[in-house]
C-alpha cells in the first residue's frame, strides 16, 4: 500500500501527494470575463451556468404557483380569469418539470461532482457539455417566447386531442421548447454514461463508487432511453396540429390513448430522473453526518438500478380510468408495486445508517432528513394510488397533486437544496451561515407540509385538479394550503439571501469542511481547473467513516 492521506487536514494534494502550500488557481479564477464563462468547457463552470439558469426558472415557476395558490383561497375565480389560470398551471408545470427539476441535480451538482468524485479531469466530452447548456438556453427561449406571446393552456401533459386540435394558444412554441430542451438532457446523460464508464480513477471499481455517482449513472440511462420517445411524441403532436395527420385525434382516425402511452413512457421514468439523483445526494449527506458507512451499500446501488429499470414498466398506472383495457390496467398496477419495493428498501437503509452513528445536525443533514420524511409520505401515498380501485377515486384529484409534490418538491427539491448546502463550500470556496440555513430547512419542512398535506385531504374529499373554481365545501382545506404556501415561498427566498451573502462575506472554506470521504473533498475548495494536481488512486471502499480516529472528531468540533 502506498502512502495514505489524512482527511480533514485542510490541505491539498500536490503533485506527488504532499501537501501543497500554494495550491493552483481555482476554476473560478481561470477567467473573469463573461466570454470566459460563455465559452468555457470546464464542467464546473458549466455547472454554475446551469445553476444560474435553473434558479431563474425555479422562481418564475414559483411565481406562477404563488398566483395559483392565491386564486384558490376562495371558491370563485376572482383573481384571474379561467384562461389565465389554465395558462398559469401549464406554465408552472412545464417550467418546473423541464426547466428546473429534470436538469436540477444532474446538470448542476452532477456536472460539478461526477468528474471530481471519480477522479477525472473533466467529463468525456467537454464541448458537448457546453453545447447541452446552449441547447437548454435555446429550449428555454422558445418556452419564454410562448409565455410572452400569450401562454399555453394545455397543461404540462399536452393531452391530445385538446393540444392537437382544440387549444387556441401557442402550443407549438412550447412543444418546440420542450423538444429542444430534451436534447440537452440526452446529451448530458450520454456524457455521464461515457464518463463514468471510461474515466474512473485507478482502483475506483464500480462498488467503490459513491452512491451519488450510481444515481447519476442510472438517471443518465433513463434520460437517454426515455427522452427521445417524448421528443418524437411532441413532434407527432405538432404534425397533427399543423398538418392534420390523424395520429391521436379520433376524428382524424387517430387514437388519443396512443398519446398517453407515449407520453407516460417518458414521463413516468422522468419522475425517477428527478428523484434518483436526490437519493444519491441524500446517501452522501446521511453517511457524512451520521459518521457511518451507508447501511447496505451494495443493496443501495442495486436498488438504484432496479428503480431505473422497473420505472419503465409502470407508466400505465397513470391511465387506470383512461379507457385502457382492464387487463393492461391490472398488469400495470402489479408492476407498480414492484417498483415501490426498492424505494422502500432505500428508506429503511437510510434509517439504519443512523444506527450507531455520531450524528450532527448541520443544515445539509436537516434537508436530508426532511427528504427522507417527505419522500416516505410521498412514496406511501404513491402505494395508495397504485391500488386500482383507490386510484379510480383519487386520480386526477388533489390527492395526486399532493403525492407528486411530496416526491418532487418535498423529495427532489429538498435534496437539491441539501446538496447545494453540502457542496457549497466546495463549489464556491465559502462558508455560509449554518444558523440561517438550519432555520430555512426547518421553515421549508413545515411550510411544505402545511401547503401540501391538506391537498391529500382535498383529493380524498373529491376535489379534481386543475380547477379554477371549486365547490364551497373545499374552501377550508384550500385556505390552509394557501397559508402554508406563504411560508414555503418565504422559505425558498431565504437561501437565495444567505447563500448570496456568503459569496461576499462568507469565511473561506477549507478543502474538506465536513470531514467527508469521497474524492471531491481531496482537492482544494474551490477546485483547480483540472480538478486534481495528480491522478488519485483509490484503494478502499466508499464511506469509510468508521473506525473514526479521535483526531478527526476533534478537527470537526474545531471548525463547527
Amino acid at each position, binding site marked *: 500500500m502506498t502512502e495514505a492521506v489524512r482527511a480533514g487536514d485542510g490541505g491539498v494534494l500536490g503533485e506527488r501527494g504532499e501537501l501543497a502550500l500554494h495550491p493552483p488557481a481555482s476554476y473560478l479564477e481561470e477567467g473573469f470575463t463573461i466570454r470566459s464563462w460563455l465559452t468555457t468547457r470546464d464542467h464546473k463552470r458549466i455547472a454554475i451556468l446551469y445553476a444560474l439558469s435553473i434558479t431563474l426558472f425555479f422562481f418564475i415557476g414559483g411565481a406562477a404557483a404563488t398566483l395559483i395558490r392565491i386564486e384558490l383561497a376562495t371558491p370563485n*375565480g376572482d383573481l384571474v380569469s379561467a384562461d389565465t389560470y*389554465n395558462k398559469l398551471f401549464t406554465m408552472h408545470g412545464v417550467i418546473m418539470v423541464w426547466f428546473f427539476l429534470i436538469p436540477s441535480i444532474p446538470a448542476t451538482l452532477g456536472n460539478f461532482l461526477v468528474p471530481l468524485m471519480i477522479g477525472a479531469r473533466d467529463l468525456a466530452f467537454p464541448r458537448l457539455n457546453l453545447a447541452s447548456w446552449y441547447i437548454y438556453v435555446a429550449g428555454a427561449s422558445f418556452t419564454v417566447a410562448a409565455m410572452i406571446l400569450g401562454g399555453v393552456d394545455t*397543461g404540462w401533459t399536452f*393531452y391530445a*386531442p385538446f393540444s392537437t386540435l*382544440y*387549444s387556441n394558444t401557442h402550443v407549438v412554441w412550447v412543444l418546440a421548447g420542450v423538444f429542444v430542451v430534451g436534447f440537452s438532457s440526452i446529451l448530458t446523460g450520454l456524457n455521464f454514461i461515457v464518463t463514468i464508464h471510461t474515466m474512473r480513477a485507478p482502483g475506483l471499481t464500480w462498488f467503490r463508487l459513491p452512491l451519488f455517482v450510481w444515481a447519476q449513472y442510472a438517471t443518465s440511462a433513463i434520460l437517454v432511453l426515455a427522452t427521445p420517445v417524448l421528443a418524437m411524441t411532441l413532434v407527432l403532436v405538432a404534425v397533427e396540429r399543423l398538418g392534420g395527420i390523424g395520429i391521436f385525434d*379520433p*376524428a382524424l382516425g387517430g387514437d*388519443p*390513448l396512443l398519446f398517453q402511452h407515449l407520453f407516460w413512457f417518458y414521463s413516468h421514468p422522468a419522475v425517477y430522473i428527478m428523484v434518483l439523483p436526490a437519493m444519491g445526494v441524500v446517501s452522501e449527506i446521511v453517511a457524512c453526518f*451520521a459518521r*457511518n*458507512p451507508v447501511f*447496505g451499500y451494495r443493496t443501495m446501488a442495486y436498488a438504484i438500478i432496479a428503480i431505473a429499470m422497473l420505472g419503465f414498466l409502470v407508466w400505465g398506472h397513470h391511465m387506470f*380510468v*383512461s*379507457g385502457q383495457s382492464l387487463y393492461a*390496467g*391490472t398488469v400495470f*398496477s*402489479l408492476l407498480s*408495486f414492484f417498483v*415501490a*419495493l426498492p424505494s*422502500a*428498501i432505500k428508506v*429503511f437503509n437510510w*434509517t*439504519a445508517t*443512523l444506527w*450507531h*452513528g*455520531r*450524528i450532527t445536525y448541520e443544515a445539509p443533514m436537516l434537508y436530508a*432528513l426532511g427528504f427522507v*420524511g417527505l419522500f*416516505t409520505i410521498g412514496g406511501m*401515498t404513491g402505494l*395508495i394510488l*397504485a*391500488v386500482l*380501485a*383507490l386510484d*379510480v*377515486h383519487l386520480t*386526477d*384529484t388533489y390527492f395526486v397533486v399532493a403525492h407528486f409534490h411530496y416526491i418532487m418538491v418535498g423529495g427532489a427539491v429538498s435534496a437539491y437544496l441539501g446538496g447545494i448546502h453540502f457542496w457549497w463550500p466546495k463549489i464556491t470556496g465559502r462558508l455560509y451561515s449554518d444558523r440561517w440555513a438550519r432555520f430555512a430547512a426547518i421553515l421549508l419542512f413545515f411550510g411544505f407540509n402545511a401547503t401540501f398535506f391538506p391537498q391529500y385531504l382535498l383529493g*380524498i*374529499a*373529491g376535489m*379534481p385538479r*386543475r380547477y*379554477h*373554481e*371549486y*365547490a364551497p365545501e373545499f374552501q377550508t382545506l384550500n385556505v390552509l394550503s394557501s397559508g402554508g404556501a406563504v411560508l414555503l415561498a418565504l422559505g425558498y427566498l431565504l437561501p437565495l439571501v444567505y447563500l448570496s451573502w456568503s459569496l461576499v462575506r462568507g469565511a473561506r472554506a477549507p478543502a474538506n469542511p465536513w470531514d467527508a470521504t469521497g474524492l471531491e473533498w481531496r482537492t482544494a475548495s474551490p477546485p483547480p481547473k483540472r480538478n486534481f494536481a495528480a491522478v488519485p488512486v483509490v484503494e478502499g471502499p466508499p464511506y469509510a*467513516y*468508521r*473506525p473514526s480516529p479521535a483526531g478527526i472528531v476533534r478537527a470537526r468540533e474545531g471548525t463547527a
Partner: protein
Amino acid sequence: MSALALPPEASTIAAHVDHLLYAVVGVTAAVTLAIFATIIAFAIRYRAGSAAPRAEDVPAAQARARRRVEAAWTLVPLALFVAAFAWGARVYVERALPPSDATQLFVVAKQWTWKLQHPGGQREIDELHVARGQPVELVMTSEDVIHSFYVPAFRLKQDVLPGRYTQMWFTATETGRFHLFCAEYCGTDHSRMRGDIVVMEPEDFARWLEGHRGASGMAAQGEVLFREYGCSGCHATQPSAQPGANASVHAPSLAGLYGRPVPLADGSVVKADERYLRDSILLPDKEVAAGYEAIMPSFAGRIGEDEILELIVYIESLSDTKGRPQ
C-alpha cells in the same frame, strides 16, 4: 365529513372502496409512523456526544444486522403489496362489469356540459336523475376532447373519450344530490363542467320520468332516424321479412343483431356491441360482415353523437338478447 374527509358514501361500490381505503391508509400510516419513530429515536440516541454505546467496528455490526433484517424488510412489504394489489384489482374488476339488469343511460360530453339521455327519451343537461337501488350503466362518449365523469360520492370515475364508448356502472344507495365533476382537464371552463346526480326513491323517480317524458323514447327516435338517414332502404329490421325497399342492394339484416357474434369478411369474428354498431355507421369499410360487399357509405360528419346513440338503442331494441322498452 367523515374520517379522512371522505365525501358521502352513496353507491354499492363506494362501501367496498372505503373499506379498502381504510385498510390501505391504516397500514401505510402505521408503517410511516414506525419509520418516523425509528428515525427520531436514532437521531436522539446516536447524536454526536451522546453516551449511547456504539459498536467498535460499525461496518461489521452493519453486516451482522443486515443478515437479520434485510430479508424481513424486503419480504414483508412485498407480501403487503401483493395483498393490496389483489384486493384493489378485485374491486376494480367489479367496477368494470355491470350487472345484466342494469338500465343503460347515455352520456355525451361536450366542452363544457354533460348531455344525458334516458332510454325513455328524457334528456337532461348537467343533471342526472336515477333511482336508488337500481343498477345503472352509463354509455359515454365525447364530441370533442377527453373528459372524465367523476362522482366522488360513488367513488367512481371514467374518462370519456371522443371516437369511442367507455362504460361505467353504479347502484346508488342513498337519496340526495351528489356532485358530478369533469376530472380530465378539457379547456377554459373545465372547472365549471360540473353537475349533479340526483338519487331518488324508485317511486319518485318513476314519477319524475313520467313528468319529463319526451315526445318518444330513444328507440322510437332512432327508428325515425333509421328512416330519415335511409338505413331502412337496405337493412331489414324484421327477422323473416323481405329486405328493404331497395331490394337490389344486398345488406345484412339488423334483426337480432345486437349482442351476437358477427363473422367478418377477413375471417375474424367480432361481437355486435355498441362499439361495433358505432363504427359500422361511421367507418363502414373497417369491419365488413362476411358475405357482403363494402358498399355502405360512411355517415361520419353527417350524424351527431346523440343521433348515433338513438340509432344504436333502436338496433338494440330489435334484438331479444337485450331488448329495451320503448
